[in-house]
């Protein structure tokens, strides 16, 4: 669908070098990386908005490296959803359609269709200044989708959406993708978002792609210190959410049952921050619902803090300070208890 080969882009003092990337037809592809990694630059380059220094971009087998953006038929939605402030939601969506010499009727139909899909039919006459974060996000998406693009580029689409609606919007994105089957490249700095949405993930750091793979490959086998550090900020588990006999949600992973707080059910992911896990030599008497015994299988010394891998199974990465590490006199192969609250587990 889209092949990027040895792409170099220089923008001011920023240099993106030797980027090679293949995105398959219909794939939901996530570009993951910290701020300043060059995610937006790469996205803009694919859209034709940045001058290319060297390399090649092919879209549907056609070389588009130097094709102007208006001839690429790529839908683009920016981070803050930059809507045309002087146009109503309807005219924002109509903008791309009007550039395509469609009849009035075709335009009206296309607007109605995409507005229906995103549930913004009631907002069509509003000006962008009167929209909430979620509403303008949907409008920006509708505007990009209305032109029936060959490729959809989303730059941090969930960052300006408030946390409560974020998960719902995330699911909506996935649904829309499943329904329309548009090849999508989604940029984010949020590892959980990447795992929840991506068929494949490319991890970007300082202007270059560090690793490409399925979410499983990335979080099980990070190929470098950079990716590992990015991944290690969370324990990511894959399992199934079930109802327990007491009506509590249970996340079942590799035979271990974690108490969780969620309304979701089915095969999902769960994440726990390493710093939310408490380590003790014996069982703790606390109100926390999750307490397991495991074996220390790896010790990663990071100076003032230490990352421990405790295998129950599954493996949990835990963070403790050097001081408590020395006080507890921990060693590999040692049996310890890990404890964390049900609310510390995020299911997605």
């Amino acid at each position, binding site marked *: 669908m889209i092949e990027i080969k040895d792409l170099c882009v220089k923008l001011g003092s920023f240099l993106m070098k030797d980027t090679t990337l293949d995105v398959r037809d219909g794939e939901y592809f996530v570009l993951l990386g910290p701020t300043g990694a060059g995610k937006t630059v790469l996205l*803009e380059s694919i*859209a*034709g*908005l940045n001058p290319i220094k060297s390399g090649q971009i092919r879209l549907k087998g056609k070389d588009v490296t130097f094709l*102007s*953006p*208006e001839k*690429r*038929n*790529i*839908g*683009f939605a*920016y981070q803050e959803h*930059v809507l*045309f*402030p*002087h146009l109503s939601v309807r005219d924002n969506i109509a*903008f*791309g359609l009007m*550039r*395509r010499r469609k009849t009035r009727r075709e335009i009206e139909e296309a607007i109605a269709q995409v507005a229906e899909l995103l549930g913004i039919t009631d907002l069509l006459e509003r000006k962008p200044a009167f929209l909430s974060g979620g509403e303008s996000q949907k409008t920006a998406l509708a*505007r*990009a989708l209305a*032109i029936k693009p060959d490729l959809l*580029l989303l730059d941090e689409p969930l960052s300006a959406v408030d946390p409560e609606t974020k998960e719902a919007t995330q699911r909506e994105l996935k649904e829309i993708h499943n329904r329309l089957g548009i090849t999508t490249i989604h940029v984010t700095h949020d590892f959980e978002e990447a795992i929840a949405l991506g068929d494949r993930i490319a991890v970007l750091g300082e202007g270059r792609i560090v690793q490409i793979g399925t979410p499983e490959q990335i979080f099980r086998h990070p190929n470098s210190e950079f990716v590992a550090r990015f991944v290690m900020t969370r324990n990511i588990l894959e399992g199934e959410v079930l109802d327990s006999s007491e009506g509590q949600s249970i996340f079942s992973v590799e035979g271990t049952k974690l108490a969780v707080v969620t309304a979701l059910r089915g095969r999902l992911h769960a994440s726990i921050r390493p710093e939310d896990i408490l380590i003790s030599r014996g069982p703790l008497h606390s109100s926390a619902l999750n307490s397991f015994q495991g074996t220390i299988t790896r010790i990663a010394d990071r100076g003032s803090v230490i990352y421990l891998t405790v295998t129950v199974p599954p493996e949990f990465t835990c963070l403790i300070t050097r001081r408590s590490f020395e006080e507890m006199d921990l060693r590999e192969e040692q049996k310890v208890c890990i404890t964390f609250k049900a609310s510390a587990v995020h299911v997605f």
Partner: protein
Amino acid sequence: MNWRAIATRALTMNLMKVVFLLLGVVILLFIFLPLFTMTVSSSPSQLLDTLRQEEVAGAILLSLYAALLATVVGFILGIPLAYLLARHDFPGKGVIEGLIDLPIVIPHSAAGIALLFVFGRRFLLGSAFHTLGIDFVGEIPGIVIAMLFVSIPFLVNSAKEGFKKVDVRLENVARTLGASPWQAFFRISLPLARGSILSGTVMMWARGISEFGAVMILAYHPMIASVLVYARFEAFGLDYAMPVAVLLILACLVIFIALRVVAHRWETR
């Protein structure tokens, strides 16, 4: 902090504002008083009589008309430059921005002389235009270029600030939606910068109407209003010059208040 400290602080804050207010009033009166005194010291019948003189009405209309022509030319040539300056950084940009401001800082009689050196019939552009049947010295085109020269900075600078405020990503999105660079400019950038552009245009027109020095060097005749005021003052004294001056001020006032109202409506629409 105790009560006394708070009271002292409130007093000093207020004292500062009182001083600032007084100083501000001085400058406001300085602008307002001469204009007001002159306007009220001329009787309506005297003004009407003056306006009936063909020479006076003609001069005022010529001022408005020539400044309007200068603004139109300035708009066509200046808006693209403003856009380029707002969107691009390049070596020597500061020099160009300084060049744009130059007409504001040089004496306008000197500017008129400089213009003569290019647009005079014996000089480069002047002779070229002469073959096309356009002369500048002592003609309306001369008035127009003199006004254009001294007033273009107002439009370019204001439009530049306006374009800078338009998020470049809006243009980017427009491009990905299928807009050519021209369409992105005319449908997105220009409408979104319209407030600054409109106020710049009004300022440019106003500055053109008020120009005296450069116009007098290039075209004493046909007379625009500011030149007529000066000519009458020189030849007949204050009493003859004043009604013309008042009429010019009133004409400008009516037009600019009207434009301000229109612009405000447009902005808040």
